[in-house]
């Protein structure tokens, strides 16, 4: 950002002071405003007379290729005179933008200024409403300076062309950001789940039925328990308690509770299992199986 630093004595006011009429005043006469397109004839295009007392009713449109020309003769009182300051001031009240273009003034007071869109700061190009074009004439001395709206200038842009913008770096609050969380995975409808749980559960009775159909029985249970009761009982119990240990691990236990229990049950199962299976083998060798 460029800041132009001015040097001047100044005073600050607590309240606004409105200017009133003074002895002699600055003004202008013979004023015209013309808009000329590039390549068109000298006298083609729009041309309007300007009045010092009231602004033009219609806004003047300035397109990309057009040149705006304002000519006027400055006067102090009613005699033409060259002022110290003769500006064409463009001002937008909504945004507070303002810029001045000095007139080229001759000794006779004849002044002219030319303006194209290239001369405008790009902040003006993005304005949609017409800006206020004012003529400012002032000079040293006691004569009252002139500052009145002359016409409205609307800056016409080709809608297809993008409006150039600049985004100056400014400290301020930034847009809020809220982290978007991944969706929690959702379970399917409970009814489907329950149906499949039922189907899976039904597989066990199906297995039992199939075994019965194939003539399964536990007839050797008594034989086995007669020949070696303790190993068989302990072996079966150890297998069931193995799964029991796993179930406890699933529900409440941690690994350090599970492993010693599993090791103990495993040792029992190994010893009893070798005895029990020895009995089973003897049955097999006796062709009972």
């Amino acid at each position, binding site marked *: 950002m460029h800041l132009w630093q001015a040097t001047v004595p100044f005073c600050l006011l607590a309240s606004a002071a409105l200017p009133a009429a003074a002895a002699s005043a600055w003004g202008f006469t013979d004023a015209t405003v013309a808009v000329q397109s590039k390549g068109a004839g000298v006298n083609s295009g729009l041309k309007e007379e300007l009045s010092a007392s009231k602004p033009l009713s219609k806004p003047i449109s300035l397109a990309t290729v057009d040149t705006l020309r304002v000519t006027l003769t400055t006067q102090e009182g009613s005699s033409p005179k060259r002022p110290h300051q003769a500006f064409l001031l463009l001002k937008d009240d909504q945004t507070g933008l303002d810029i001045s273009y000095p007139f080229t003034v001759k000794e006779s007071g004849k002044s002219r200024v030319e303006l194209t869109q290239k001369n405008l700061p790009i902040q003006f190009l993005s304005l949609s409403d017409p800006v206020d074009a004012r003529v400012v004439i002032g000079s040293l001395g006691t004569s009252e300076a002139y500052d009145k709206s002359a016409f409205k200038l609307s800056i016409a842009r080709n809608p297809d062309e993008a409006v150039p913008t600049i985004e100056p770096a400014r400290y301020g609050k930034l847009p809020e950001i809220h982290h978007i969380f991944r969706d929690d*995975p*959702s*379970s*399917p*409808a409970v009814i*489907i*789940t329950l149906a*499949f749980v039922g*189907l*899976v559960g039904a*597989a*066990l009775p*199906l*297995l039992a039925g*199939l*075994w019965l159909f*194939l*003539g*399964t029985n536990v007839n050797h249970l008594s034989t086995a328990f007669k020949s070696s009761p303790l190993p068989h009982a302990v072996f079966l119990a150890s*297998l069931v308690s*193995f*799964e029991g240990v*796993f*179930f406890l*691990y*699933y529900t409440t236990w941690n690994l350090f509770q599970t492993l010693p229990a*599993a090791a103990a049950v*495993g040792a029992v*199962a190994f010893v009893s*299992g*070798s005895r029990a*299976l*020895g009995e*089973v*083998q*003897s049955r*097999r*060798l006796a*062709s009972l*199986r």
Partner: protein
Amino acid sequence: MPSKRHAASTTSAPAASTPTSTPKSLSSGPATLKTNASAAEIAQHVWQQYLTTTPQRTLLLDAFMFFLVLVGGLQFLYCILAGNYPFNAFLSGFSAAVGQFVLTASLRMQTSGSGPGSSKPSSKGKNARFAGEDEEQTAGISHERAFADYIFGSLILHFFCINFIN
């Protein structure tokens, strides 16, 4: 399952030959197939052969394997239909069925080779479980040893699945 296939093929392939070609030919066995048998007839013949020639103990084993296929298939179907959340539970439940199936298949391979009909107990010692290891070179390990291994493997499988299902 090679034994099953073996049993089936030995009876069905030389369809024109005499039924006595099978070592385990049974009096209640099905009639031999004709040369121009249709696919359905062949399938039915194979099924009949399987039912009649497979030892009953092996049939029990096959029933258990069928149960495992059913449970595993249902779980897989549910995963396809209803999504895989929670995925670890699916992996755990499904692999429990698959792993149990594989272990049972191994047990079947190790025990069905010498069914009750053709069993030739070669071991003479009383402590057959340990004596059985002598005959491993020729007839594989004893049924009881295979069953002990099966229980050991199954328990480890169950532990891992329970651990993983959280």
